[in-house]
């Protein structure tokens, strides 16, 4: 027969200080764990949202990021005129040949410089990226030296406020708007007209061509056709896959670091829990003896203490989730070493993350409670009774 759970609950509140410190110990571990998951998933989400599965992106063969790519005007014309490119009702191709470059710009709020991505787009192709919306100011005028700045990166670099001038090479550009793009990595970029930006940077070179596919289901055929064209020398990726892959290295590094940090903290928290549970078992020798005399089996005693430890850990885990919640949505930024440019992204706490955090807490509770529970159950009854 099982020992009532209320017995364990009441015991936990019998020693409030010790219960609380152990709980907070678990809580901090779970908080860091959820935080690391939120960091990795926020970063992945920012890049994933940049790409749409309906679009294809074309880069030079072998290029692993847009900055290491390069396409001639002839090549981009061939791609953009292809039969697989979707069109708007008025006959415009839904496609953009982008000029993508990095510029080294001073940071705001912390010392040093970092690489800011500048993307020159076809002004006529905004329909291709329908998640883009101007939040402040206005759109840049085609053919002018005006630029718009992503909402998330704007507070992080100098010269990004409306009306500021940003210098690229020999020319000054005026910031006329801020834009949002559903939290995607586009919000970490500066956009302008490709025709104006191109001569400022490399000359007649585009970095990528993106187009909406008439039939996204036929992506494989589209890819084979373009990659086989000897005039092009390109790789074709589904846009969503391309941006997911851009997250690769950094997301892995965050993952490894998070795992490493959490694992070590977990070991410490488990030791702390063992301490608390051993103390709980030690101070209740008499109670355990009484329970056994009443007919509870050693196994039920063990299960009962395990449940107590589990409760302690789950309460700590819940506390950790609560403590982690305020970081949700906080924007941070670092360099994505695949694209070599600054990406701002928000911590993103997911239900899956919270669930994993709680499971993790439960695991720590069971690990910390096992030995003390075993000790409680295997104590010879005669010995306990003699000490009464």
């Amino acid at each position: 027969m099982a020992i009532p759970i209320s017995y364990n609950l009441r015991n936990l509140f019998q020693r409030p200080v010790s219960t609380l410190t152990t709980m907070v110990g678990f809580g901090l571990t779970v908080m860091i764990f959820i935080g690391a998951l939120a960091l990795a998933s926020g970063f992945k989400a920012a890049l994933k949202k940049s790409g749409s599965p309906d679009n294809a992106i074309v880069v030079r063969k072998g290029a692993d990021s847009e900055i290491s790519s390069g396409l001639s005007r002839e090549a981009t014309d061939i791609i953009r005129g292809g039969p697989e490119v979707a069109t708007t009702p008025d006959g415009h191709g839904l496609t953009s040949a982008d000029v993508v470059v990095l510029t080294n710009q001073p940071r705001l709020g912390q010392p040093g410089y970092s690489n800011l991505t500048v993307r020159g787009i076809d002004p006529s192709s905004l329909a291709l990226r329908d998640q883009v919306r101007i939040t402040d100011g206005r759109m840049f005028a085609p053919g002018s030296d005006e630029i718009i700045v992503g909402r998330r990166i704007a507070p992080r670099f100098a010269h990004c406020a409306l009306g500021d001038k940003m210098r690229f090479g020999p020319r000054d550009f005026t910031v006329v708007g801020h834009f949002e793009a559903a939290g995607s990595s586009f919000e970490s970029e500066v956009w302008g007209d490709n025709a104006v930006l191109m001569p400022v940077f490399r000359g007649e070179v585009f970095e990528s061509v993106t187009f909406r596919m008439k039939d996204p289901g036929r992506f494989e055929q589209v890819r084979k056709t373009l990659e086989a064209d000897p005039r092009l020398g390109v790789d074709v990726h589904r846009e969503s896959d391309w941006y997911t892959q851009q997250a690769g290295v950094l997301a892995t590094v965050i993952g490894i670091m998070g795992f490493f940090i959490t694992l070590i903290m977990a070991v410490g928290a488990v030791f702390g829990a063992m301490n608390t549970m051993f103390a709980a078992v030690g101070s209740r020798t008499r109670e355990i003896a009484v329970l056994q005399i009443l007919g509870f089996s050693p196994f039920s005693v063990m299960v009962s203490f395990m449940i107590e430890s589990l409760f302690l850990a789950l309460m700590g885990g819940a506390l950790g989730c609560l403590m982690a919640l305020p970081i949700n949505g906080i924007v941070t930024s670092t360099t994505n070493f695949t694209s070599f440019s600054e990406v701002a992204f928000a911590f993103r706490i997911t239900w899956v993350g919270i669930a994993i955090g709680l499971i993790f807490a439960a695991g720590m509770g069971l690990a910390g409670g096992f030995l003390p529970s075993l000790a409680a159950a295997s104590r010879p009854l005669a010995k306990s009774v003699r000490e009464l």
Partner: protein
Amino acid sequence: MNLLSLVFVNLFRNPLRTLLTMASIAVALFLFCALGGVLDTLGDAVKFGSESRLATRNAISLVFPMPLSYRDKIAAVPGIRRIAVQNWFGGRDPVNPHEFFAQFAVDPENFFPMYRNELKIVAGSPPQAEVALPADLDPKLAAFMAEQTGCVVNDELLRRMKWTLGQTIHLDGTIYPGSWPFTIRAVFHSATPSFGGNTMLFHFKYLEQNGMGGHGFAGVYKLELENPDHAADIARQVDALFENSSAATHTETERAFAAGFVSMYGNIPFVLRLIGLAVVFAILLVAANTMVMAVRERTSEVGVLKTLGFADGTVFTIVLLEAAVITLGGGILGSVGAKLLIDRSHFNAGGALPPMTVHWSSVRAGIVVAAVIGAASGLIPAWQSARLRIVDALRRVD
């Protein structure tokens, strides 16, 4: 019987608890020092650069190259002893596509003499034919100098990729398309892991002739100065040369250049510091919990001690010492362990960081943290037992 033996008796009265607490403190300080190590490693990357060398890059950003014709124009600036070309290649080994390492095309006759103190050539293939080498070049580079597709590889990288001297490897270019063969003709050791570790060097001519379509471009020029005191002045002169050209330059000391890479990590160091703080707070709780438990079960003992004539101050000292032994013991174990383990592991987060080291200053910081935790966790129980009245202590039975 002195105080210390009383403390030790108390420590061993519940050896398991003492051990668990010490272990959790050791583990937490290991983590604290490991996080400090990441910051140390990033800091080292900044310090590698020499103040006596300058780096010139395109003013827009590192990604843009400069015409090769700049080399002679820069070399003509008075006060520059030597100029070397360095160009990022960005290749990937198709055999190990997830192993990241740096490849630079350099002009060896200038580059290796410039970095003679940083890069030590430890092995080289025997030369096929007699080559006349410049006097300031290591003779072990003879085979490499004679072969345009030759390359020189860092010793750690060679071991990690399981390559051997004389082996031909193929890299897929991400910036310069195609499959590029390289033959490993020499191996070098980096005096500081933050420079040249995880790196392969090869002939700039090879890249220029096969990857640049006849137009010579350089990513970075490295300038060795005759007198480092003139660095700022020379940097200004170099940038003035190209101020109104299509590719304006930005020249800074090599140290500032390296610092630029570290500042690219953005908020990450701040996040690490924050985690370090959370870890410290978590162990403080564990230690405090232990001390409270340890003292609570000894209430009547404290009463006995006081009855025997121990002063309040002495009781206070005994409890505080006990906390100090536990936290300092665990702290020293964890901090020094982190130094020994991490320095030996050469952990580099899959190539994203230079190999990690933990400085002794971080270890010291860890031990200080442990001492503070010991004081903080022991203070309240110590104060409580010092304040305890004998009647209360002996009245309580449990």
